């Protein structure tokens, strides 16, 4: 016998025209008020999408590609400009570079890493456990086990921040 939960799982595919109700499912839907409400909701979700304005996708892709080309061109010009400037003012550039603090002369920028002092208190096994949880998708393990903060939307986050910052 089809359960309401199974019905809900089937609804998106049926609403999108990718599947059809079986006889049993159709019968269940006809007799279940809760499933009817959910079916109505899923159909509305699909319908919301269908109200989106028709896009001129050729124009969109042309605009996107245009922006990408412009950006690449700008990067090339900047590099060329820099080289020209250095070549033209070699003596001055040498003086300037010699005054620059050592760390800015590195070709690889120093990586930004947020230090977490609390990690100092953990042993290797515990650190590995925390690392595994970071690797796991959000929601797995215990990193998402406390509902509330992680589920707050932007408005609620803003209110929380205001209450804490005063």
């Amino acid at each position, binding site marked *: 016998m089809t359960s309401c939960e199974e019905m809900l799982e089937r609804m998106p595919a049926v609403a999108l025209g990718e599947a059809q109700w079986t006889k049993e499912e159709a019968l269940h839907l006809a007799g279940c008020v809760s499933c009817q409400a959910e079916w109505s909701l899923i159909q509305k979700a699909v319908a919301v999408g269908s109200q989106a304005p028709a896009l001129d996708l050729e124009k969109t892709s042309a605009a996107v590609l245009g922006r990408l080309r412009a950006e690449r061109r700008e990067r090339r010009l900047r590099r060329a400009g820099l080289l020209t400037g250095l070549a033209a003012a070699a003596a001055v550039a040498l003086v300037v570079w010699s005054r620059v603090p050592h760390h800015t002369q590195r070709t690889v920028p120093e*990586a*930004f*890493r*947020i*230090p*977490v*002092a*609390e*990690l*100092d*208190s*953990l*042993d*290797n096994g*515990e*650190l*590995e*456990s*925390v*690392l595994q*949880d*970071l*690797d796991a998708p959000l929601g797995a*393990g*215990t*990193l*998402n086990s*406390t509902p*509330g*903060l*992680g589920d*707050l939307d*932007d408005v609620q*986050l*803003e209110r*929380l*921040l*205001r209450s*804490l*910052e005063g």
Partner: protein
Amino acid sequence: MRNFWLVPLVFGLVSPLAAQELADDPRASDLRRQIEERFTARVKEELALTDQQTTRMKSTVRDWFLKRRGMEDENRRLREAMAGQLRPGVAANKDSVAKLTDAMLELKVRYAQSFKDEIKEMSGYLDPVQRAQFMVLRERLIERVREVREQRDDSTSRFRRRQQP
């Protein structure tokens, strides 16, 4: 709503010996680095930080990290002193214990306040939603650290209870 200012207060509980061992262990250093790198990547993505925001955040978090590390060191010294006073078979000096207790409590308040001050400093370059997102992300990480610490403390207590005659 749960007062998550209490969460950092738990972090007074650092074993001095363990901390010293960890400071010298390359594997531990590597693990901490990996955790911090992945956490940072997540923060950068979730907050959609600009280069300027990243630069400023780098300075903020480094400064507050050093301050909190100093607080952790101070807390370790206080705990060692307290452990010295509370040794079995030794009469504790009540005045010293009271002063140490006050100092530890005051330190906990300063520690908790440091998170608030850090976030306030970020208001100079992060918008309210970004600041809240940062708080949530860090809260999650710290919560997980607290959980693994509690698991260790629980198993240590159980071990000690089993060892008792």
